[in-house]
């Protein structure tokens, strides 16, 4: 346990000295929080007068039986940002893990590291946690700011309430961590084969594609993301994580790292 902590502390003091990593971790969540809030702010006035129930997909309007058309529309707008928030827990850990693992390869620190009494499990756990903790902190922090911001901008308890429904809570606190773990596992696997952290990061970041497709489908009105969809995504991610973690830990063996990582 203690060695994991030591590992995490070292990871943070090292990887955040890299300006690019620091930029991604600090600015991406800011951007993903500010953008929806700006959109909300600018559409606040136009929304109420010109739009109503007609612009909301039927699946959504079915859920707003007790609310006014404008409230329903605004709830719909904020719900569109859900998938955007789920990109934070993928991008951040993928960036940190790629830079940290490829970094260990280029400085050739893996061999002296593996010569210490740390277990490969502790090492992998340290790397994984060092990448996921900042990601989850950023995701949850951004979510909190988004909820507060929405409340300040719209001062509508119904819309704010729609943000703390099980749909959002499941996505942010359940699917988010699962996505982070998938991101790190893939970054570990790709970093073992690639010697440029930027390449590793970009390849690993491709895991975001399914989420982007989902986001696109949702924007085009092809898919409607509700609680059931999120639960299914969560279940699928749990299984995928199991498989990915298994493969990542297979790659993360002393002998494999020293003799097969190129």
């Amino acid at each position, binding site marked *: 346990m203690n060695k994991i902590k030591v590992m995490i502390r070292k990871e943070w003091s*090292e990887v955040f000295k890299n300006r690019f990593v620091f930029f991604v971790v600090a600015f991406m969540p800011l951007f993903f929080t500010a953008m929806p809030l700006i959109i909300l702010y600018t559409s606040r006035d136009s929304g109420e007068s010109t739009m109503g129930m007609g612009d909301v997909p039927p699946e959504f309007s079915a859920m707003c039986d007790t609310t006014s058309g404008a409230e329903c529309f605004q709830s719909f707008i904020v719900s569109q940002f859900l998938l955007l928030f789920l990109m934070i827990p993928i991008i951040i850990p993928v960036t940190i893990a790629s830079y940290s693992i490829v970094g260990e390869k280029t400085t*050739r620190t893996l061999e*002296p590291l593996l*010569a210490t*009494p*740390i277990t490969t499990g502790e090492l992998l756990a340290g790397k994984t946690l060092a990448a996921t903790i900042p990601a989850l902190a950023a995701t949850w922090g951004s979510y909190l700011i988004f909820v507060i911001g929405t409340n300040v901008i719209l001062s509508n308890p119904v819309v704010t309430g729609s943000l703390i429904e099980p749909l959002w809570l499941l996505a942010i606190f359940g699917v988010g961590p699962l996505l982070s773990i998938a991101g790190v596992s893939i970054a570990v696997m790709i970093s073992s084969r690639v010697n440029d952290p930027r390449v590793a990061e970009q390849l690993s970041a491709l895991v975001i594609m399914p989420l982007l497709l989902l986001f696109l489908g949702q924007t085009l009105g092809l898919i409607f993301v509700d609680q059931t969809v999120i639960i299914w995504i969560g279940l699928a991610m749990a299984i995928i994580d199991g498989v990915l973690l298994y493969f990542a830990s297979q790659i993360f063996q002393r002998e494999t790292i020293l003799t097969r990582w190129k």
Partner: protein
Amino acid sequence: MTNTNNKAMIQTDNLSKHFGELAAVDGLTISIPAGEIFGLLGPNGAGKTTTIRLLTALIAPTNGTAHIAGFEVGKQDTDIRRNVGILTESPGLYDRLSAECNLGFFAELYEVEHVAEQVERYLRMLGLWDRRNEAVGTFSKGMRQKLAIARALLHEPSVLFLDEPTSGLDPEAALLVREFINELRQDGRAILICTHNLDEADRLADRIAIFNSRLLALDTPTALRRQLYGRSVVFHLSKAEPRFAQAVESKDFVQTAKIMDNKLVVTLEDPETHNPALVRSLVEIGAEIQFVGELRRSLEDVYLRMVRDE
């Protein structure tokens, strides 16, 4: 805690490592006691680094066994790691972290009790204390090498593996590192040094193994020189004739006698005893002796001959 039932700190038996078809290490059997500096000498690709990786439980042997500080490789790997210090082929330091942070991190992983004291001790010992807060990325090669040596010692290991400790260092830095290694012997550690610097092995090592996948020879530096060539005496003659060599060779204490230019080179077991008789008989048959001297073979001759003969 060191398991001292076994006197040898490094003990291998038929240790082998294959990478597919290639036998990087082939049937290595050695035994190294505490307090000994052991030189592993071999050309590029001989399997020196692979041997160190095997003995530090970083990779698993294909065949054979090894015990380090009494612990068996493959079965008690964590115990081995606690008792072993390693200077890897490349220093392997975190460039963005300071010297102090680098050592502190490893000291904690090595479960060192008083991290700060131990880090300070070795930073001072290797003359890096004043630069402890600087990022290692700004260090010179020699400073990095010293820092990596300090890291190998933080947990006071009883067995030390040094993979080419002075490679890439200028003569002064190399001398400093060599003197430092020499001092480490006094604490009763077993030290295995890989090198292709023959002079270094000659000066530092108590015993030397000449190694190219297989063990080619193993002995003290002096004995190695003698084992291959005996001792050679050179007679500088005003005129060297073949009959001098024939006359000398007929004596039973002489191993070989050869004429080279104006010199007669004679190898024999014990020159101190037999030289006067040799000189006398040469003079008797008309040889005019200008100088008599001993031909000192360098370890390099021995080494090159072994590696080439192979």
